[in-house]
């Protein structure tokens, strides 16, 4: 008979140290958990890129040869600014500053849209320079190269570039749409100093997307 009395006693009474869950409200916990899965999604794309790049370095060009680094550096700066405005929006509602919330949210949406817009322009130019995702049509001549010059890099370059940056751009776009919803709710006065969970949730997502971009910018454009 293994009825160790003290063990048994500890099993029989409600644990005094019991805390129901983490001291985080459920929506926020859910957002964290969701973002972990997003990490794995980008890991699979970035991991594939790393493997392909190590296996075929000749398919990839030196920084700045094909991709327009200065333009994207500006764009990266904008996205980081949008993270700052997002923090400002959250700080505003924490102070109960409803007007500040709306203005900073609007600023975040505008900068986020600007990022997507610049990315679209970048895509357009690159595509017309022959830097395309389809392997068969790849003929990027490079920024310094002239019309009809030697092809720089190989098809894996275009494929990985558009897949990674494209899915990031899609995440930014979804973020802008969600921010717009949050702004509409803010205009209706849905957020108060005591309850502004929606602002915090979209903020978490937005900072995550920003962080992913900093990684992508580094490994795709700068290395």
């Amino acid at each position, binding site marked *: *008979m*293994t*009825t160790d009395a003290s*063990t048994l006693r500890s099993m029989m009474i409600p644990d005094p140290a019991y805390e129901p869950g983490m001291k985080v409200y459920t929506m926020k916990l859910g957002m964290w958990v969701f973002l972990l899965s997003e990490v794995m999604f980008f890991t699979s794309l970035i991991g594939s890129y790393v493997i392909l790049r190590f296996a075929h370095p000749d398919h990839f060009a030196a920084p700045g040869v094909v991709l327009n680094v200065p333009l994207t550096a500006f764009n990266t700066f904008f996205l980081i600014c949008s993270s700052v405005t997002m923090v400002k929006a959250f700080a505003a509602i924490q102070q109960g500053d409803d007007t500040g919330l709306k203005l900073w949210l609007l600023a975040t949406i505008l900068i986020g849209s600007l990022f997507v817009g610049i990315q679209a322009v970048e895509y357009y130019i690159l595509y017309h320079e022959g830097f395309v995702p389809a392997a068969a049509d790849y003929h990027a001549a490079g920024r310094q190269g002239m019309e009809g010059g030697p092809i720089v890099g190989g098809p894996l370059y275009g494929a990985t570039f558009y897949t990674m940056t494209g899915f990031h751009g899609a995440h930014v776009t979804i973020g802008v749409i969600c921010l717009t919803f949050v702004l509409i709710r803010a205009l209706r006065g849905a957020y108060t100093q005591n309850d502004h969970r929606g602002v915090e949730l979209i903020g978490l997502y937005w900072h995550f997307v920003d962080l992913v971009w900093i990684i992508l910018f580094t490994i795709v454009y700068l290395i």
Partner: protein
Amino acid sequence: MENWSWLMDGSASTFGPTIDRLYLVILIITGVVFFATQGALIWLLIKYRHRAGHKAEYIHGNTRAEVIWTVIPFVIVLGIALASRGAWAQVKDPQNIPPNSLPVHVMASQFEWDVTYPGLDGQLETGDDFTVRNRMDVPADRPTHVILEAEDVIHSFFLPDFRVKQDAVPGMVMNVWFQPTRTGEFVIGCAELCGIGHTRMRGTLTVHSAADYQAWLNEQSQP
């Protein structure tokens, strides 16, 4: 088949017996575990079946038992893994390919094996190479080194009697070797689903005595 068996047929390569012995060792170990656990299960089911007035004992577990049945399986399976290392390296490590091997190039494609021989000079990629389809002829007195490639999709070069299996992956060169232990005709199969004709992608491997092989080689090398 005349000499029917529930296990693999006798092998025809030098490392075949090593693999078969390993199989047998694992079969004995798992067989003992199989009969022990299933026997214990049946014994428990009969012994402790519900009977009127019978009550279960209040037992939560036993730390010593947990340690025992964690450590013992750990030691056994780790032993199996360590015992397997040698045979694995012998078969798959390219460093262990005997230097006196006959080099043969095999190109797998939908749905055939194209086997290229070095001809009389013993060197591949020289003018006297010749290619045969879906058959392979090798001498019994020296090892064969198969340089395996695939043209279109993944195939798998399977010599059941030689305990040889290696996927042929497009864009990669695989090294396979074996040393026959007896003459005769053996089967070449494809073990990886490769399309509609997967089932008919097969060939014949003939192991000749040294003299027969030379005769065959001379005959094939006639212009």
